[in-house]
């Protein structure tokens, strides 16, 4: 089945265009001055600068982690541009004032803001190269007391909330990449949903990396106050580049008593070409804290892009009866490497977690699931269910599973199921013999494999994800 099963997919990355927009960029390299410069450019208060500096100083003492199952050439952190913002022509009052070139680019990406607002009932806060350029639906949301804005704006308008929660889930010293992010984060999204409010629409941010060589250091903070509900969508595309682009984002979620946060990601950053050249290095720290009783945090991710993915969306189950979920599809093709999974830390009583991970490997891609389930001494009757499935396409790719289970309470129940399967010539032949094209056959088999995860995604996102999977794997079967 060797040679013949991996001749197919290799469509050029279709979002690999560059938009010609004036970007305000600072010189390459990172020292204390860089941190001060970023903070000054953003007119930040002293406490935030102090926090950044603390993180920077900590970072300089830390070593880049190498325990993950990925390999890449050493990153020269002094050769990275740490800040780039599109120059606004003037202060933006509404979306109509957004740079027409930007709007055109959104058009190419199929995310016309107007259309999305009208038809999809989705509020979009677009982050482009680190600074938010437009926020929609704000008025409607603010009637309910919901805050949905850029992190920069949140620092100015809601400093008490930012100060209280920033770093409360992912401390500035958490890990190498989180410390780096804390020192130099440029912008990101901020959401606060007040007590008892159910956010009436999906909140969505499209991230995009634009200026060449610019690292993206997004910082997102979402807080659901007692009894609140919010569903947040994150989707990414990036232009094609030769040089590797470093990305180290941090996402923090806080769910108070009876609150629910659903966070969905479709990640399609440039993965590098068929020879493994270029592509995004994606080192992300995502963590949620179920701070209150009966709270719930659910991560759903579809990871199809990036040359390297290092990402473990996790949940700290602090409140009694709280629930953590992680649904993941990770696809690697060509020379992509992904080391992704989750950490469920059970601290409160009767806490429950569910992990469903689907890894698909094609070409010479390497996919690792790394998950930790930890039941602390006081987490009586904690329950975890983990299902971890790998699918191989061809015989030059790899699938690896690294589950870590640590149980310190005897009343806990932890289940782990794992499987590895190979997409077979026999399955493809069966479907093509019924008149279905080879591409559609592969898409169908893969979508079937990922069904348990896709059904957790909001409808349009699920369709997009399914298409993306098809595109990613196109040509992987010949």
């Amino acid at each position, binding site marked *: 089945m060797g040679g013949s099963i991996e001749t197919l997919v290799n469509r050029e990355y279709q979002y690999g265009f560059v938009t010609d927009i004036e970007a305000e960029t600072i010189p390459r390299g990172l020292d204390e001055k860089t941190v001060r410069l970023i903070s000054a450019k953003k007119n930040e208060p002293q406490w935030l600068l102090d926090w950044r500096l603390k993180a920077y100083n900590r970072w300089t003492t830390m070593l880049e982690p190498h325990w993950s199952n990925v390999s890449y050439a050493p990153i020269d952190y002094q050769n990275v541009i740490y800040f780039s913002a599109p120059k606004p022509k003037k202060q933006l009052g509404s979306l109509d004032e957004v740079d027409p070139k930007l709007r055109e680019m959104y058009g190419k990406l199929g995310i016309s803001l107007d259309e999305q607002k009208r038809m999809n009932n989705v509020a979009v806060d677009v982050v482009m190269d680190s600074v938010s350029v437009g926020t929609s639906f704000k008025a409607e949301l603010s009637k309910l007391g919901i805050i949905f804005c850029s992190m920069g704006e949140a620092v100015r308008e809601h400093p008490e909330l930012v100060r209280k929660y920033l770093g409360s889930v992912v401390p500035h010293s958490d890990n190498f990449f989180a410390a780096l992010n804390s020192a130099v984060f440029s912008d990101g999204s901020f959401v606060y949903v007040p007590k008892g409010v159910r956010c009436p629409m999906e909140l969505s941010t499209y991230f995009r990396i634009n200026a060449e060589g610019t690292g993206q250091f997004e910082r997102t903070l979402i807080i659901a106050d007692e009894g609140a509900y919010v569903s947040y969508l994150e989707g990414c595309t990036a232009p094609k580049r030769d040089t590797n682009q470093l990305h180290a984002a941090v996402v923090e979620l806080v769910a108070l008593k009876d609150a629910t946060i659903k966070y969905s990601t479709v990640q399609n950053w440039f993965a590098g070409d068929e020879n493994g050249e270029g592509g995004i290095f994606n080192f992300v720290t995502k963590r949620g804290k179920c701070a209150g009783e009966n709270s719930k945090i659910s991560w759903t991710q579809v990871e199809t892009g990036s040359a390297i993915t290092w990402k473990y969306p996790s949940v700290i189950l602090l409140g009694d009866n709280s629930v953590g979920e992680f649904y993941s599809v990770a696809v690697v093709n060509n020379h992509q490497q992904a080391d992704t999974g989750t950490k469920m830390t059970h601290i409160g009583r009767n806490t429950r977690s569910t992990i469903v991970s689907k890894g698909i490997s094609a070409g010479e891609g390497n996919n690792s699931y790394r998950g930790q389930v930890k039941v602390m001494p006081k987490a009586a009757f904690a329950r975890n269910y983990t299902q971890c499935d790998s699918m191989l396409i061809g015989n030059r790719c790899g699938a690896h599973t690294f589950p870590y289970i640590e149980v310190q309470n005897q009343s806990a129940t932890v289940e782990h199921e794992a499987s590895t399967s190979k997409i077979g010539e*026999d399955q493809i032949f069966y479907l093509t013999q019924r008149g*279905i094209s080879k591409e559609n056959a592969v898409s169908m088999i893969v979508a079937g494999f990922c069904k348990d995860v896709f059904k957790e995604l909001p409808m349009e996102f699920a369709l997009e994800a399914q298409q993306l999977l098809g595109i990613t794997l196109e040509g992987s079967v010949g």
Partner: protein
Amino acid sequence: MLEIKDLYAKAGDRDILRGISLSVAAGEVHAIMGPNGSGKSTLVQVLAGNPAYEVTGGSASFNGKDLLSLPPEERAQAGVFLAFQYPVEIPGVSNAYFLRSAFNSIRQARGEDEVDPLDFLDYMEKKLELVDMDIEMLSRSVNMGFSGGEKKRNEILQMAVLEPKLALLDETDSGLDIDALRIVANGVNTLKRPDNATIVVTHYQRLLNYIVPDYVHVLAHGRMVKSGDKSLALELEAKGYDWLVEPQGALA
């Protein structure tokens, strides 16, 4: 309809078909019989385009088209259907979605409009009756957890839905109890029309009590060693294959 001339094929390094010729006209039922390893399954797999086999010589034309030059999906779109001996499981893909995708792919290839899910369901109801299957089978994943008999009935259901011009039944009787065999055979007989043809591959005469062939061919060592009418099947039942098959020594 189908004209096979001096067909050679191999799997890996192993020659399996060594010069098969066969002519099938519309309205006919042909049975291909033979001992294990004679190449009878390979013949229909090759006609359907299974990439596990390599054609090394000869030709096969189907309604004037060079069948062997087409990828499997285009053969299916042209009206060739293979009922698998071992139907394949596709986890997470519902039988209904699979059937409709296949149905619409073939319609599209013929320049016809796609059928929407509701109309398709109506269409399916009659087809399900034919093979005595419950509508609940449509919401299950393709062949997942199906019993042997259910899998075979599902094959005939697909055949009923896609209405092929040439149906190739690859040991459809294997592993079936007598009731399932009757249902399957009844499905095949009901679908028989003057403008389509069927090739039945079977090891045993039993199936041919239900699906009555116009011609019976015996394969051994990749060659057609005898052809006749349905009485040949009965003769084989009585005498076995040995009298037709020469020992092959090194070539076996």
